[in-house]
């Protein structure tokens, strides 16, 4: 509750600043009256955060209890940090952390740059109709649910009659168990992430590129710069702030891989490299009924995520960029 109240208290001054009103503190009250309409507009947003983001945080208290739904939050016995102690001392912790970090790193290294490269390529396309159609086509996968994406890959990659393995066998190779071999899980996961998300990810960068001053390109052309040089010396520096903001956001989601995708591609044979915090919270909490324990795991994940955002933001500011806040 205290977090919620604090948010309410903090909101008006910020809104006042945004409204461009440099009113000194003692005049705040009149500022509130003056910008009533603005405050009114902020109310739905604030309510949204209160109701859907802050109020549910109260539920985190079950991480410190032996929560039984039938007893409720009020009636469940208090166990303090027991669940955290169990989590940090179990071998699963290192496995989960390792898997989550490994997959996240792979995504940062391989998936993060893809939209930037795609956007740069698209930016150089001069035929408008071609550019438009390519854009549409690469956006499409974004609108498919993970269930569809994974099912498509399942049909393609299965060793029991999947198209890809049929080709491999036709070409004289041995079928590759993409779906069950632990070594193939991560490459497959990253590939699917890129296939689904890369096109959509270009939107932000393309938007940033339209803001680049055309005169710069003209001037560089006079100086004899080719396409590559223009890209390197004009386009990329121009979208650097965008890239950095996107990077900070990506870091913030570092442990937040999302449950659905991994859950769908995981099975007992590749679980050892696939189980991440999100899926573990689900199996432990929902499937195996250890709600409190799962809440503790989720809580930990959230804290680490918060820490990472703050660190990334600090780092960005150190390098003279704006950061996200």
């Amino acid at each position, binding site marked *: 509750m205290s977090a919620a109240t604090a948010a309410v*208290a903090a909101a008006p001054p910020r809104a006042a600043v945004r409204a461009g009103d440099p009113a000194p503190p003692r005049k705040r009250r009149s500022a509130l009256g003056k910008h009533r309409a603005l405050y009114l507009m902020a109310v739905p947003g604030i309510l949204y955060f209160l109701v859907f983001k802050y109020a549910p945080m109260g539920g985190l208290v079950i991480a410190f209890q032996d929560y039984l*739904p039938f007893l409720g939050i009020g009636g469940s016995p208090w166990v303090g940090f027991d669940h955290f102690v169990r989590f940090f001392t179990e071998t699963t912790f290192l496995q989960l952390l390792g898997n989550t970090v490994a997959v996240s790193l792979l995504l940062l290294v391989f998936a993060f740059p893809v939209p930037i490269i795609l956007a740069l390529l698209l930016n150089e396309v001069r035929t408008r109709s071609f550019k438009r159609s390519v854009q549409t086509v690469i956006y499409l996968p974004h609108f498919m649910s993970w269930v569809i994406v994974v099912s498509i890959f399942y049909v393609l990659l299965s*060793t029991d009659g999947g198209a890809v393995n049929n080709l491999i066998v036709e070409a004289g190779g041995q079928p590759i*168990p993409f779906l*069950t071999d632990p070594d193939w899980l991560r490459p497959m996961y990253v590939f699917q992430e890129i296939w689904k998300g890369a096109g959509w990810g270009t939107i932000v960068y393309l938007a940033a590129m339209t803001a680049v001053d055309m005169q710069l390109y003209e001037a560089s052309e006079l100086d004899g710069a080719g396409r590559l040089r223009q890209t390197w010396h004009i386009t990329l520096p121009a979208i650097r702030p965008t890239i950095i903001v996107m990077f900070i956001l990506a870091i913030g989601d570092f442990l937040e891989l999302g449950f659905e995708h991994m859950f769908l591609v995981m099975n*007992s*044979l590749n679980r050892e490299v696939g189980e991440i915090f999100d899926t573990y919270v689900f199996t432990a909490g929902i499937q195996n*009924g*250890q709600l409190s324990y799962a809440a503790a795991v989720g809580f930990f994940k959230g804290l680490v995520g918060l820490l990472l955002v703050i660190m990334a933001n600090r780092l960005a500011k150190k390098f003279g960029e704006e950061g996200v806040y």
Partner: protein
Amino acid sequence: MVVTRGNSMRKFGRLTTGAASAAVVALALTACSGGTGEGGEGAASDEPITWMAMLHTPTTPEKDGVIEKALEEHTGEKFEMQWVPDASKEEKINAALASGTLADIVSLTQGDSTTVRQALTSGMFWDVEKYLADYPNLSKVDPQTLESARIDGHLYGVPFQKIKARYGVVVRQDWLNNLGLEVPHTIEDLTKVAHAFTHDDPDGNGKDDTTGFIDREESFRVGFRSLAGYFGAGQQFEVAADGTVVPSFTTDAYKDAMEWYRGVYEDGAVNQEFVTVQKSNQQDAIAQGKGGIVVTGLFEAKNYMALAQSADPETPMSWALVNDITAGDVERRILTDTNGGMGGWLAIPKSEVESEADLKRVLGFIDKLMDEEAFALMTNGIEDTHYSLDAMGVVTIEDQTAWEQEVQPFASSRPSEKVITYKSTTEYVDEGNALMLENEEYVVTNPAQSLTSETFTRQWSTIEQQVNDAYNQYITGQIEMADYEAVIENLRGQGLDKIVEEYTAAYAKVNG
């Protein structure tokens, strides 16, 4: 700052007042409807009865469909089904139990799920035992089924009455004929058949595109469980020679079965990616003739036929139903797949059904569902629409598609499967029923079924999952038997030993 806070607090206060008054209004409304209920001298409310039930078919039957209407007419009660797809029952039911968003009747079919057991023992459901005697059908529930359904002496729901052991092995008869093989009755012969189905082109299409066993993701809990039974392993738990109650997956018989099955898998005679195969994919693969041996309920052969015929009316498919596989010198036996005829509970939550009068109304409804008329509706459908009945009482399903759409979903929600056994003109139905009946004599049940172990309730789901993973890894050749044993050793410290200890003590207490 102070002013601001005060202001927003005041606003916030007003907001809470608003919410509170809304809640009061809502309360008043419910109180009103509840009031009429209790006002009439304990008369039950007349809201439709809601029922959360498992759906084993791919499509949901239409709301207020013909069967629902007919059942409402028979029982004199309006009701609403809330279907939960069987594949996602774990998360759906657990989430529903955890959040308390339940229906008036909740079908709980996973007797050993941690959440379900915790929910049952938490007292959130009515203990129905003392009411059963007042109802014509409920008073006649099989005592052994009742015993299996009790937890700590309490009956937290009306048990689903099932046939005790429905499992067996079904084998493609036409493939056996093509290859000149006999129907297998021993594990050795079954192995040979599986090998031949994989390597000798049983469908004669000149391609190496068939396998023996078609298994699925749930192998550990379903198909292989039954196979291990032939080798002498118990149903989930068994009593060892020294009187301790041990999980069957730790026994030598079970490991022998694993070694055998891995051999079959290595031979290519089990679909190689069974760990990724869902039930509906498995059925498709069978219908498409990708494999010829399925360890499953003996009633399934007719469903495979129907599926294959819907794709190709000229399908050469035919099945041999086998209920008497034996391994080595182990005597004929079959593990129960229904906890000794107890398929779970029709539990009635106190949060939804608040008064005793309402409880009696719900029990009356369940009781009426066990009448012959209701049983016929949920089994065959409506006479002359879905099926016809000849003078000998033989049932012919007339409209297979309509039956699958409208009737089949209700079949698994019948409170009792054993009301009548209809003769049928559909292939394999009578045969399957006869073989399942034969099974009863050889059935092996779980000695720990009605015992309680607190650690079991809390930890079993987690333990079982880890063993399940290790089992899959062993069968597919990722790990060796020593690794499997190491996983079990590791689990001993995580509660497995405590479960054994608690069950052994409980068993000794009951059996002297």
